[in-house]
C-alpha cells in the first residue's frame, strides 16, 4: 500500500526567522483598534449583562408561551412539540378546562403542566416549527445563568410571561 505524506514540515524563509515582522503586523492591528476605541469611541464590546446587544429576529433563545389577542393561552396541549423535540426536554400534562376558567382557554383542552428542561434543550427550534397554534416561540432572549439545577426547569408561569403577537406565525 502506498503511503501519501500529507503533513510536511514548514520551511521557514530566512526573513521569517526574525519574528519582528509578524510581531509588528500584530501590534499594528492592536494599535488600529486602540485608536478606534480610545479616540473615535467606536468600541465593539458591550457591558454584558447590563447591556444587551440587539438580537436577530431569528435568534433562538429561551422559550415563551403566547396568548392570543383575547388574553387566552394559545397552547391547546396537542403534544406536537413534545413529540418532535429531539432532546425530549418538554413535558406536558393535558387536562380538561375547568368550568370556571373557560374564558382563559380557546378550547376544551389545556396544558395543566408545561415544563421545559433548558439544560437538555439544544435550541433547535423544532418545537416552534411543529406548533400548529403559534403558541411556543424561542424568543425569550438569552437564558440567564442560575445557581441551582432546578432553576433551569422552566414552568408554565415563567414561560407565559410574554404576551404574544396578534397574528399566529409571527414573532413579536
Amino acid at each position: 500500500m502506498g503511503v501519501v505524506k500529507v503533513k510536511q514540515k514548514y520551511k521557514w524563509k530566512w526573513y521569517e526567522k526574525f519574528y519582528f515582522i509578524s510581531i509588528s503586523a500584530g501590534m499594528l492591528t492592536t494599535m488600529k483598534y486602540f485608536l478606534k476605541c480610545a479616540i473615535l469611541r467606536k468600541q465593539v464590546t458591550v457591558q454584558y449583562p447590563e447591556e444587551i446587544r440587539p438580537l436577530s429576529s431569528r435568534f433562538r433563545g429561551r422559550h415563551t408561551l403566547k396568548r392570543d389577542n383575547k388574553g387566552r393561552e394559545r397552547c391547546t396541549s396537542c403534544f406536537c412539540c413534545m413529540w418532535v423535540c429531539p432532546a425530549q426536554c418538554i413535558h406536558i400534562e393535558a387536562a380538561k378546562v375547568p368550568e370556571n376558567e373557560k374564558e382563559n382557554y380557546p378550547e376544551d383542552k389545556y396544558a395543566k403542566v408545561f415544563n421545559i428542561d433548558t439544560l437538555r434543550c439544544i435550541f433547535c427550534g423544532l418545537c416552534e416549527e411543529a406548533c400548529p397554534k403559534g403558541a411556543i416561540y424561542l424568543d425569550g432572549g438569552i437564558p440567564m445563568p442560575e445557581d441551582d439545577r432546578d432553576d433551569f426547569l422552566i414552568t408554565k408561569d415563567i414561560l407565559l410571561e410574554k404576551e404574544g403577537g396578534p397574528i399566529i406565525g409571527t414573532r413579536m
Partner: protein
Amino acid sequence: MVTITVDGKEYSVDENKNLVDALKEVGIHIPTFCYHPKLSVAGLCRLCLIEIEGVPKLQIGCGTAVKDGMKIIVTSEKIIKAREAIMEFQLINHPLDCPVCDKAGECKLQDYSFSSGTSTTRYKENKRTTPEEEIGDNLLINHNRCIMCLRCVRFQKEILNDPRLERIHRGNQSMIGCISNGKDEGKKLIDHNYQGALSDLCPVGALLNKDMLYKSRVWWYDRTQSICHGCSSLCKITVDVKNNEVYRYMPPEDPYNNGYFICDQGRFSAEDFTKERLFSYAYKGINKKSPDVFSEIKNTWQNAQSIVFVGGTTESNESLEKIKEIIQSMIKTGKNVKWEYKTMQYMWESNWAEEVDFLMTSDKRPNSKKAREVIEGPFSNEKDFIAALKNADIIFSLNEFSAPYSYRINDENELSENILYKIFENENLWGKIINLTTHDNNASKKALASFPVKAMTEIENSFTDKKGEIKKTKISVRPPEGLRNTAEVLEYFINSVERQTAIA
C-alpha cells in the same frame, strides 16, 4: 365465487358479500364512513360511491351486492369528483379540532380528507356549534364533530339490543341524543360495558371515553398484538404502550378475523398492569434482597408439613404445568401439598364460565379452563378449604392479590372485599402466607413474605380460552431485569433454600 370486472381487470370474489367487503378481500379499498361489517347497511355517508356499467348514476358500494359479470369502475374522474364533494359536505360543520381531539391519528375523517378530499372549503356560513355533553358514565359526545353516520345508533340497536341512542332533530340540526330505550323508566345515561367499543366505532372523535380523555396521543403508542386478561374469552387485542406503561387495549389489527369489539372491563383495567408494582422481595412488608428473605423463612419452610397452594387461574399454561411438576416433587419428599384454584365466590358453583353477552363471560380469570384441567381442586366446598388453610403450615398465594384481577388500583377497598383476603384476615393467617404477586399493596405488606412476579403483559406464553383454543400473549412491556414468572420464582426459592442449607 363469481367473476367481476373492476377498472378493466377481472377478479373472482365472494358473491354473498357487498362490494365494499368483497373488494377488500382482493385488495381494493373503497373509503367508507357509515358502513361497518358487523352492522346493517345504512347508506348514509355516500362516500363509497362507485360506477356500475349500465347504471346511469353512481351507486353506493356498501349497499350493492356482488353479481356475476358485473363491470364496475372505482377510480374514474367522476368518482374522484364525487368523493371530493362528499368530503367537503362532511366537513361543513366539522371543526378544525385535530390538535385537541383524541381521535386524531386514527380518525377516518382525517384519513379520507387527506386521500380523497380537497384542502380548502367554500363554506362561508357559521359552523353549527353545540356544547359537549355526557351521555354515559364513561362517554362524552362532542356534537360538533359528529358526521351522522349513525354507527353508534345501529350498534346500540343491533348488537346490544338497547336502543338508547337516536338521531334527534333534522337536517343541519340533527344530532345524536340519549333517549329512553322503552325498557327503563325515563332517559338514562349509557352505563353498559361497551362504551369503549362505541368510541372505537365512531369514525371521528365525536364519542370519547372520559377515562382516556387527553391522556396521550395515538402516535406515541408502541403496539403489540396480544390477548386480553379480562375474562376467559381471551379476546385478541392490541396493547398500546407508551414509555413502557400500558395505556389501553384496542381491537386487534386484523378485526375481520378476530372480532371487532372488546369490552370495557378488559380495555380500561389494562393500565393497572404497570402501576404500583412490586419489584422487590419483601419479608413482613420490608423490602429485602431475595437471599435474605429466603434465609428468614427457611426454617418455617423446612419444618412445614402441610402446604396449600391457592390460585392458578391467572397463570399461563406453561407456568401451570411447571408448578404442577414442582408440587409433585414436593410430595415425593413426603410433604402434604394441596393445590386449590377456586378462590372466587362464583368458582364454588358448578357451572361458572357462563356467557354474559356476545363477548364476555362472567368468569373474570384468563386461564381458568386450563387451571381446571391441571389442578385437581381437592376441596368440594368452602368450609373444607378454610379448614385446610387453617391447618396449613405454609400457604402459597399464586398471584391472587394482584391488580387488575382481584382489585383495581384506584379502588383499594376492593382488595379488602376480595374473599380470599377476607378469609386470611378473619382467620388471621397472614403470618404463614407467601404471596407471589405483581403488585405492592396491603396484602404484600401483611404477608410473611412477598415475591415479585411478572405480569401477563410481560410474558410470552400461551393461555387456553373458554372454548379450549390456545392463544398466545406477547411481551408488550419490558420487565425489569431479573424479574421471574410465578413458576420460576418458586423454583428459584426452593433451589436457593436447598443451596443455603447445603452450605450451612
